[in-house]
């Protein structure tokens, strides 16, 4: 799963090596576009991309948010049908990501396409590569990975200063949010994504890191093969979470707990600590992750 550290370091070294190679006098001078260089994405794929990409796009709504944070927005060529943030993105032409509108995407001729693990199938990525469009995957397990992702984007889009500004300000904001030491013991929080069957945010999702920074802990400690495992009512009774995120108390009372009245015994229901969190903030690993932590913290401290 993880990139070994030397691979990550190599990834930073590669552009330098490529730069040295490009300086060789016998190399033919590149045309009006860009020099190319080799990079390696978070999944370890080796890609050849222009040093100064002029047309980019993202195949995931979170990645569109990442691009808007770092890129020169005029270089963002399009968005997908589900990309709706920031508002400026809505003015970009739409390329359907599911099913992938390969023809329109190719017609758009992006220099590089960004996506996140799980949002674009390897088959689609393979097809795009064959058609000469490099697909750069990012993968995030912790908030720090998102910051690193922003920094990587800055380097890839030749906007390191902008990326640094964004990351620095996000870091500062996160430090401010997490400055107070939360009261112990940390409440155990179960975040529900679907009611029937019951799917939740598993241990190996970004939520685990976010809720920890917000002063709680993911109630799901066991590591399942799926990031969003299906749980039984019995399993949830045994977890007995202190807080449930998935909808306001009133809404959950009339839906979720109506469907599964046995679960009314859990602490979260008895203490009415059942909250609604903004879907996009919960689901998208984007620069708004810090806003998501802030929201979670507000929920946990509300009485």
């Amino acid at each position, binding site marked *: 799963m993880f990139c070994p550290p030397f691979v990550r370091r190599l990834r930073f070294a590669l552009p330098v090596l490529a730069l040295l190679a490009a300086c060789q006098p016998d190399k033919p001078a590149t045309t009006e576009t860009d020099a190319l260089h080799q990079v390696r994405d978070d999944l370890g794929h080796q890609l050849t991309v222009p040093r100064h990409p002029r047309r980019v796009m993202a195949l995931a709504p979170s990645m569109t948010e990442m691009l808007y944070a770092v890129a020169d927005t005029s270089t963002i060529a399009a968005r997908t049908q589900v990309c709706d943030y920031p508002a400026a993105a809505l003015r970009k032409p739409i390329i359907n990501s599911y099913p992938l509108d390969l023809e329109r995407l190719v017609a758009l001729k992006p220099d590089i396409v960004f996506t996140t693990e799980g949002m674009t199938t390897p088959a689609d990525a393979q097809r795009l590569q064959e058609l000469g469009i490099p697909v750069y995957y990012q993968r995030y397990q912790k908030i720090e990975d998102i910051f690193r992702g922003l920094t990587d984007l800055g380097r890839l889009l030749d906007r390191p200063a902008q990326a640094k500004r964004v990351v620095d300000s996000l870091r500062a904001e996160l430090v401010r949010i997490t400055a107070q030491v939360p009261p112990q013991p940390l409440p155990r929080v179960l975040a529900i994504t679907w009611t029937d*069957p019951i799917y939740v945010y598993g241990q190996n999702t970004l939520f685990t890191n976010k809720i920890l920074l917000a002063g709680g802990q993911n109630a799901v400690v066991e590591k399942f093969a799926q990031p969003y*495992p299906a749980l*039984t*009512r019995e399993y949830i009774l045994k977890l007995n979470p202190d807080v449930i995120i998935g909808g306001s108390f009133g809404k959950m009372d009339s839906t979720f707990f109506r469907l599964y009245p046995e679960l009314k015994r859990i602490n979260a229901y008895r203490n009415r600590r059942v909250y609604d969190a903004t879907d996009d903030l919960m689901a998208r690993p984007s620069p708004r992750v810090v806003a998501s932590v802030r929201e979670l913290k507000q929920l946990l401290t509300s009485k």
Partner: protein
Amino acid sequence: MHRSALPWILACLLLLLGLLVVGLRVGSYETDFALLGRTLLHYNPQDPAQLVLVELRLPRLLLALLAGAALALSGYLMQIMVNNPLADPYLLGMASGGALGASVTFAFVPVLVVGGFYLPPLAALVGALGTTLVVVIIGSRRGRIVPAQLLLAGVAVGSLTTALGGLLTFLAATEEKLRTITFWALGGFERASWAVLPYPAAAVGLGLLAVLLLRNNLNLLLLGEERATALGLPVARTRWLLLLIASGLTGTVVALCGPVGFVGLVVPHITRWLLGAVGRGNLVFCALLGGTFLVFCDLLARLLYPPAGLPVGLVTALFGVPFFVYLLRKQGT
């Protein structure tokens, strides 16, 4: 050729009892025999482990039992009705119809609980019965069911509802919705509770009672339409009755558990192999064996993929098909 069903029924009951005891012990909570005993003698709902036993595990086992019984019985009746060993409870498009009904609610209805009533099972029931109605209209002529026509209508309409369901699946962009629709296509018992059990219990009870009363007519129908008519059987009316009973049984299961596959095809065959085509205990044994088989499959599903379990329809096929093939080959020699 009659063989006594009693030993088989007793053996099956014993097996079922064993499975129920094991089934009560499988789950997230540790529940030893001492706890089972305590729960049996002095049920204390304040103890979460006891609550889980009584409110979650037991209804789940009973739902699997009733669903299996209903599907096996339904399959048995369908096979007699069309006089075709390939018939199963989903002959009339109930599986894809039910899945389509449920998918429609997941795709288009924003609020799934209305006035405390959970819509998807109702929609699945409407989808299943609606599809059946269409198939029956196409598959009957002047008030008589024409088996060959009914079979073809079932295949055709089933393909159509499958395609419509596929369209909804394709358009349902979120992963969670996809998984829900998968659940509705393969079946499971996770939503079991005491509140839903009366429906399948009533369906199985009434269905069994009705077919026991019709038993002699069933055996006559097996002789083929001409000979059955010659022997004075009102063939058309018997077929309609069978269709009604089988549809009621299947519809109930589809609404509550999704279209659990295979059990309704294989269990009637096993019943006939063991007890003969017209055995006296066939109907009771078929229902009992179907229930036992599904309890076993659900147990296996939970053991293989804790905590939620694999969709039970996968397990019935994965473990039922090899067994079925084995029997088929053995039968042939």
